[in-house]
């Protein structure tokens, strides 16, 4: 191993923790939730705790906002995927109840596209 080799190994050894720290922590907290009900979109601030009841295509979905986080609490659908999504708190996170046609998207400072496929 030459001295340059050691430099490269050291560089790699420093780069890995840097990547883990920057990519896996310090997520931007979501500030606003965008609730999509059918074709209507409403924006809800996560600043104060409250519970929302929203009438969807099947029935009423209950959405809870607490401590800057948001989640589905109850839903009339069969699968309960939306409830199993749990708390959303980082910008870009998403939970949806397709049968009831209600979904929640968390927005941060700079809202971007969710994904693009082609």
């Amino acid at each position, binding site marked *: *191993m*030459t*001295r*340059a*080799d*050691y*430099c*490269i*190994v050291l560089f*790699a050894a420093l*780069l*890995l923790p840097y*990547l*883990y720290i920057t*990519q*896996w922590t310090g997520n931007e907290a979501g500030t606003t939730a965008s609730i999509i009900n059918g074709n209507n979109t409403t924006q809800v601030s996560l600043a104060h705790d409250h519970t929302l009841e929203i009438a969807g295509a099947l029935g009423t979905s209950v959405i809870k906002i607490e401590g800057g986080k948001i989640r589905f609490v109850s839903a009339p659908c069969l699968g309960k995927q939306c409830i199993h999504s749990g708390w959303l708190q980082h910008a*870009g996170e998403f939970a949806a109840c397709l049968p009831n046609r209600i979904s929640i998207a968390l927005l941060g400072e700079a809202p*971007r*596209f*969710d*994904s*693009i496929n082609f």
Partner: protein
Amino acid sequence: MSEHANNGADSTTIKTTPDDHLIAWLAALAITIHIIESVLPSPLPGVKPGLANVITIAVFILYGWRTAVWVSMLRVLVGSILIGTFLSPTFMLSFSGAIASLAVLWLASHLPGDGLGPIGLCLIAAMAHMFGQFYTAYLLFIPHDGLFKLLPLLMTAAVIFGIISGMIVRSMLHHLSKRHGQEK
């Protein structure tokens, strides 16, 4: 590299140099490894031992950057045609990775002093390969910030496999020089 006559005297024969034969043999070796490796299951898309790069690095050390470019590009091209991924996303990723690692090898060949040994070369080439294919994936296929969550894992794999293939190259060169020593 060479084209043999197959229909009599009027067929043309391309003159080949010993260099062409060398490149062809080494590329064939790299392509074989590339294809065998493509059959191996992978825990994450993008994580592959990258053993074909062992050949690229060994060629770089033994015969220089230009030969390494030939061998690496032929491997990506022919390998993808044989597997059936030519011009598919898989090909784009391995092509961009190969370009990135060759670019880094070019820089490494201009280092002053002792330069890099096999392990340093393999490691930096593996990391460049990963960055290259990661950014291609990000720009072309999945332009979503969530992709960056994968980067630490992918880079860890690149570092581990880079060091392992560096050790393989080192012992390979060691054996080669021992054999050459016996012949002389």
